[in-house]
């Protein structure tokens, strides 16, 4: 294949952002619009000041044209993130977060930070959370083996970042420990005879 090595094993962050943009968010429209059909479904009608659920990409688009306010998802606020962070640092497991929280939080903070209270605090919390989880990923490397690695609750962006390294190291590990003769049992017996 002519793709560079790093692109063969994984997708790129912008692609993940695109996928995350299909998720629905609530907005408070500032313009009215009839119900409109898109490829992924029909959304609307927009009737200010009633809330409405539309895909993230459309909300971002409207927001940039100043035609709506975005209601941040219920986990994207200081209290909830602080709780997640506390849980994260208290235990060895990854705490439960929305699967695409990294992408959604980033685009919302980029475009609609004035729609949420204390956006800077939220940025700090997200950064802390990311670093805490990265440290756990790093520790998991030391336990690498040929068959499995347990990373429950890791989000899509984090998975994407560690995937190439983990896949490659597990491949190498497999090659190193594999016995070409596959005569494992016979070897164990021989071990016993020798000792």
């Amino acid at each position, binding site marked *: 294949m002519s793709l560079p*090595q*790093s692109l063969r094993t994984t997708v790129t962050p912008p692609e993940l952002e695109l996928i995350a943009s299909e998720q629905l968010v609530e907005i408070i429209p500032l313009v009215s619009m009839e119900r409109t059909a898109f490829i992924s479904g029909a959304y609307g009608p927009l009737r200010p000041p009633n809330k409405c659920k539309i895909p993230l990409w459309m909300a971002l688009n409207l927001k940039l044209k100043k035609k709506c306010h975005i209601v941040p998802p219920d986990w994207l606020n200081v209290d909830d993130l602080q709780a997640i962070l506390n849980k994260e640092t208290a235990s060895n497991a990854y705490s439960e977060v929305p699967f695409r929280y990294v992408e959604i939080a980033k685009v919302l903070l980029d475009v609609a930070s004035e729609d949420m209270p204390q956006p800077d605090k939220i940025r700090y919390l997200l950064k802390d959370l990311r670093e805490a989880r990265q440290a756990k990923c790093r520790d998991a490397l030391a336990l690498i083996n040929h068959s499995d690695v347990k990373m429950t609750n890791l989000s899509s962006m984090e998975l994407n970042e560690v995937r190439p390294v983990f896949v490659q*190291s597990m491949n190498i590990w497999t090659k190193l420990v594999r016995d070409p003769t596959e005569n494992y049992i016979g070897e164990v017996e021989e071990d016993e005879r020798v000792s």
Partner: protein
Amino acid sequence: MDRDYFSIESILAENQKISCDFKVDIPEMGHLGGGNERDIKAPCRIPLPVWLADWAEFTIPTPFGPRVRNALKAEARSVRLSSLVGAGGMWYGYGKMIMDMKSAYSTRPLKHVSPQTFRNRLMEVVDQAQHFATLGSLGAGGSSGDTAQSFREGLDATERELFSLAQESAKRTKRWYEESDRGRR
């Protein structure tokens, strides 16, 4: 690493010589030793390429000898694998090949060496890769210290590939985090 006919890595890993003991005279093969003799005279030791040594009796080569094994056991990260097998060499692939060729019995002490070494060095490889990804274009070296520098120079080809994978991935994610796409929409 697995002895696949079509694998470039496997060919590169085979690019080593190991010393073989000859126990019988072999006529007309003196050129293998590089000398002028016509025949190989019985007890003698000649370095042969790995692919040729498949049928011969050979000693465990120095990159996997007891000295290196002890050094690896003491601190895997301080051993320069690349200087053991030459530039672009594949220490892991070479070791695996040696182990597959020798009978299971004689390589028993060797068996866990390369997986253990790999695991012990892996975290340092990835750490440094991520460190360099965050440095960006500011340039390498300088503050990173001598130990890190010499570790990087000592990476074997397998680890080098892993290093660049980790670096590339960390870079891409970092770029995405930092770019704001207000303008793009």
